[in-house]
């Protein structure tokens, strides 16, 4: 069955459907990871987006129950060069196509994904409509009027507080769409984990007498979650704070810094980040469309990590306020595990992790 992509700039691309039959809109982005498509699909930070994989063969090792970053697929649509029908891996429980269909997710193959990637690189992230119907003027109009939803975080965040008991330090997570590997790492360090819906009040969090709070990753523009920015403002200085990705941007806004949209974002498993304290470069997993501007960052913030490719801020710490914040994903899933030591450092900094 045929499927189509219509971009904001009018480009139409034809391919073959290997997912659900439907029409959806979203922001089109590319990911350069050569492995990890299931992690990408289930990463809540991709909510509202149509993801193009630059690696041409996708589906090679099927899907399984363990590699997921949340309980369901979060992307709006999935674009690949070639979908592999005959997967092979000891852990596989089924093929990717069935998985996408079961999750009612649009997916298209036989696309020149390199051409598409270059288009996104040159023109920046665009809105798109993906469909298994013929492209009509009506669809084009629809795309013209499309605005990226402002409630993506609310959609992917937990609705109820969840507690994972353990004898270790009590660490809270503000769930903006937290990836399961973040939880996994904290569990491994013996933490008792309290996961809060994104709009939980600072007061409620402080009531739980946590040892620290982690502002999680999540989708969309940090400026769309002002409620969380306010919460951060009320927690800063009262609890040790760790931040990842969207959490990093939210806390930065609360600290008075600004955020801006990157032309086409950072999405992949090979992003070099230099630790300014020792000049060592680490390969990191990244997935973000916005970045923190250094203008407006308070003086007591020390920028610790910088992206080697484009010099954007990748992390900072603030000893005065006890904040440790990174833009990238130390939890990997997908991507390199090189930065996972951060979890240990963080938990040790509050006296845990033994």
């Amino acid at each position, binding site marked *: 069955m045929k499927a189509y992509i219509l971009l904001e700039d009018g480009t139409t*691309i034809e391919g073959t459907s290997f997912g659900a039959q439907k029409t959806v809109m979203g922001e089109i982005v590319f990911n350069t990871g050569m492995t*990890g498509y299931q992690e990408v699909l289930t990463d809540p930070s991709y909510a509202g987006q149509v993801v193009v994989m630059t690696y*041409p063969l996708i589906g090679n090792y099927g899907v399984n129950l363990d590699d997921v970053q949340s309980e369901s697929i979060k992307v709006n649509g999935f674009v690949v060069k070639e979908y592999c029908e005959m997967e092979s*891996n000891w852990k596989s429980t089924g093929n990717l196509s069935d998985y996408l269909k079961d999750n009612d997710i649009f997916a298209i193959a036989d696309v*020149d994904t*390199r051409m598409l990637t270059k288009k996104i*690189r040159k023109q920046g992230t665009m809105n798109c409509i993906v469909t298994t119907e013929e492209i009509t003027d009506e669809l084009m109009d629809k795309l013209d009027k499309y605005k990226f939803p402002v409630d993506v975080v609310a959609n992917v965040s937990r609705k109820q507080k969840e507690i994972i008991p353990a004898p270790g330090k009590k660490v809270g997570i503000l769930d903006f769409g937290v990836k399961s590997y973040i939880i996994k790492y904290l569990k491994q360090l013996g933490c008792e984990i309290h996961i809060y819906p994104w709009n939980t009040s600072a007061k409620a969090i402080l009531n739980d007498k946590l040892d620290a709070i982690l502002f999680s990753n999540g989708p969309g523009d940090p400026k769309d979650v002002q409620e969380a920015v306010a919460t951060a403002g009320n927690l800063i200085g009262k609890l040790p704070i760790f931040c990842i990705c969207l959490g990093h941007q939210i806390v930065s806004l609360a600290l008075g810094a600004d955020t801006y949209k990157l032309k086409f974002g950072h999405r992949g498993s090979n992003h070099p980040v230099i630790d300014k304290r020792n000049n060592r470069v*680490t390969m990191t997993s990244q997935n973000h469309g916005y970045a923190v501007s250094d203008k407006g960052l308070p003086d007591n913030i020390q920028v610790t990590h910088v992206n080697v*490719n484009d010099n954007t801020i990748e992390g900072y710490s603030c000893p005065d306020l006890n904040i440790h914040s990174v833009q990238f994903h130390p939890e990997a899933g997908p991507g*390199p595990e090189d930065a996972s030591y951060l979890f240990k450092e963080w938990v040790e900094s509050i006296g845990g992790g033994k």
Partner: protein
Amino acid sequence: MPVNKEVKKVLVVGSGPIIIGQAAEFDYAGTQACKSLKEENIEVVLVNSNPATIMTDDNMADRVYIQPLNIEALSYIIDKERPDGLLPTLGGQTGLNIAVELQEAGVLDKYNVKLLGTSLDTIKKAEDRESFKDLMKEIKEPVPKSQIVCNLEEGEAFVKEIGFPVIIRPAYTLGGTGGGIAHNDEELKDILHKGLLHSRINQVLLEQSVAGWKEIEYEVMRDSNDTCIVVCNMENLDPVGVHTGDSIVVAPSQTLRDEEYHMLRTSAIKIIRALEIEGGCNVQYALNPESMEYLVIEVNPRVSRSSALASKAAGYPIAKIAAKIAIGMNLHEIPNYVTKKTMASFEPALDYVVTKIPKWPFDKFSYANRKLGTQMKATGEVMAIDRTFESSFLKAVISLEGKGNGLRSPKLEMLSQDEVLDKLHICDDKRVFVVAEALRKGISTEEIFDITKIDPWFINKIGNIVNIENRLEAEELTVELLHKAESSGFTDPEIVDLSGESMETLDTLRRAHNLYPVYKMVDTCAAEFESATPYYYSTFETEDENEITKNKKIIVIGSGPIRIGQGIEFDYCSVHAAWGIQNAGYESIIINNNPETVSTDFDTADKLYFEPLYIEDVYNVIRKETPQGVIVQFGGQTAINLAPKLLKRGVQILGTSVESIDVAEDRKRFERLLRELNIKQPKGAAVNNLRDAIATARNIGFPVLVRPSYVIGGRAMQVVYDENGLKSYLKEAASLSSGHPILIDQYIEGKEVEVDAISDRNDILIPGIMEHIERTGVHSGDSFCAYPTQTISQKVLDTLVDYTAKLAKALQVIGLMNIQFVVKDEEVYVIEVNPRASRTVPILSKVTKVPMVDLAIKAILGENLEDLGYGTGLKPSSNLVAVKAPVFSFQKLNDVDVALTPEMKSTGEVLGVDNTYDRALIKAFKGAGFAFPQSGCLLVSLKPEAREESLNTIKEFIDLGFKVIATKHTGEFYQQKGLDVELIDRHDSQLIEQKIKAGEITMSLNIPTLGKNPKRSGFKIRAIAEQYKIPGFTSLDTINAYLVALKSLKDNSDLTYETIDFYINKSLLKIKK
């Protein structure tokens, strides 16, 4: 950290001659390193014994020493040059070993030379099995159960503990020499024995076998600040059990989940950190296909064949970056040379699939054991890139230049299902073809997996190819089907053959629907950043990102994979051709498929197309680029074979015309030409059947030289002495070149002389003439040879020059030509004319200082030799004397007769350079690994015809104090002549082996009657000598030369090891006096 200020001068050690397991990849690495160091204003001194390399070109380093890679030469050079550092990690195992030896001999300490990139401690930790095991234990990385053994008893005891099968790996060897898998006691004894011999430190590792697990490799880099990156990972299609050099390899891995990929990646980084390597490192893993269990199999603390492949596969120049790291730079301070916008501290993201397939010498050695195991047998490799596995794989298959046009083999098609099932159990070079045939015959993926342990993913992909074959046979050829077939890598002849449609129909369809490939860039970053690299591959996709300039441009066709008879020298010529074209103001474009070489480095030519050297693929590039012309004369027979096909499509072939090439290659036309020119050649004829063959041979008179027409490197060429020999040869060779006749020539026993010339159609320039040391009957590639000639009279030299000029003019040669002559009784005969570059071009370019390829390019572009400043005619020789010695890889190839014959067997060469013949000869022998003991025992066994002539040689050895043992007939002959020789039964190979092992026999002279038959005693003796690495001579001329060197060594204890310029200038001073 920026460049280490203390390091101002660096000595780079090359890897020596090409042998199986250590090939052109180290020329690529060394060349990159030299360029990289010079960029940082480091003074570079280079030592390598291999003259056929780009790295030994004058402009590559500040000073280049083409000298043997041994302690003696290196100590001399270090003493003279006083380098601050030694870079040993780019010269393969040879480079590492010499560094260890220099350190152990105290040379590095004495001269205060710092080992760069990798410390001695690291080398030892990685290479010494026991310390490696300890280190892995320390950092909790799993390794197979194993034990170091130093003798058979220890080995047997360990196997009792862990059971069969066990892998045997000798320490400190190349390409797994002497290793293997033993399934029983007998195999254990045999392999263990050989392994102990080959190890430099008499250590062998016995190891638990995980044959059948996935084999995965990681290429890791680390800088002194501890930043680590993985350039590329690779998955072997062949599971553990086949040497990675003999495995089909894909990049990146295809069947690993993210978790598996990063589990191994994390491990690789942990290992490079623990070893504290500053540079590149290769880690090989076995991964259980049923779990997350893995084992570290091997670590190479240096640049390797895999890193060359990874560099080309990912567009990340590992050797270049490793050299920068070695002098103190950090990864984030080194630019990414492809994007020019980002830094080297990142991990390439591929958006294509790379397939590497080894090139084995079994087409040449039809009688060699084709089974693949832990001992590498491939001489070279091909690589292909595309956006589907099917096409990447099929392009690589086509690049092997096999008989077919795809994955089908008529021989396999004829087999029954049971026969194919049986064949699946044999792991040899044909395995993927057998897998495809099994699928065609309805054998299931599961069953094939059970037998071969090849991951079902790969089997299913091959199944996709088979499905398209079936569809082409069964369905109408629609646009969709044609597109499917083309985008999956099917060639036109294959589509025509399967579909039954004509080429015209196919072309019409293609034109009507614009079914042509587009070109995409290898850019390291999957298009995330804009990129400047002119490195392209073809694919069937929507967007063509190939930027075609309006410049005047010329395309150079490369020579494909390194194989016996077509080696690195043609890559040398292709690279110089690209440079020459640039110098002349044109855009240069290279098409080639060999990942190991300098020609496929993305900054060699202005533009690189990584494509099969197959007519369609080459023509598609030409169609796109519309160059002024295409040059085929530098890419060996591979490129020459493409010439008529290109011409037929209207492509302008620059230089010597295709017509002239045909005259030179077509026997009848060539004979006519020589008659017209009044030049003699050995009598001969082309025959198509046995009757004609016998009649012709009788007419000419035995012995005769027989060979198939149109061949590379004298494939299946042989001297036969009688009718029986002729009959059995024809039986074997008939299938070798169906459609082409067999050539029978008079065998003239004389001196062989080789002339290389540049011709501009009117004038010629002969930079030098080389004289073979062995008489005719030994392939020129396998002969020792000397420049300038040593025993040729002026009259004959004049004739050679005259003939060369006549032939060049008659053939209207424009560019390079090579002529082989026989000289007997002052009479000159022409054996063959090759209107193209030859094996000797790099040597002559270096020793005569005539930039041959550059001049050839100028001639091709219309300039006159007269105006180019190097004169015409024969260039007078200086007092420099050079001797080339061939180097063989017999230890890797069981069942190949080591005896010298008209069939080429050597894989590489070394050059000895000095001011006298004797000294150059000593160096050539030393460079080729010969020792010069002052006493010992020579084992002699000769064919009757050779005995009389050998008397003097044997006498001289006895006079020098050598003992001589001879086989019965040979020995009795000597005894009759009054020589004191001992007799030995030639059939008692066990006794002979014992004596060799015990050091009671130290050298062998064995001239075969028939050769090639492994059951004959002579074959066995030669094989044993080779296995025990004692000098084994199979020609009287070679041993006589050795004798000359041996005797003169006594008077030449003060050998110098200097640059070519030194010897040339020294002689000039002499002349002035």
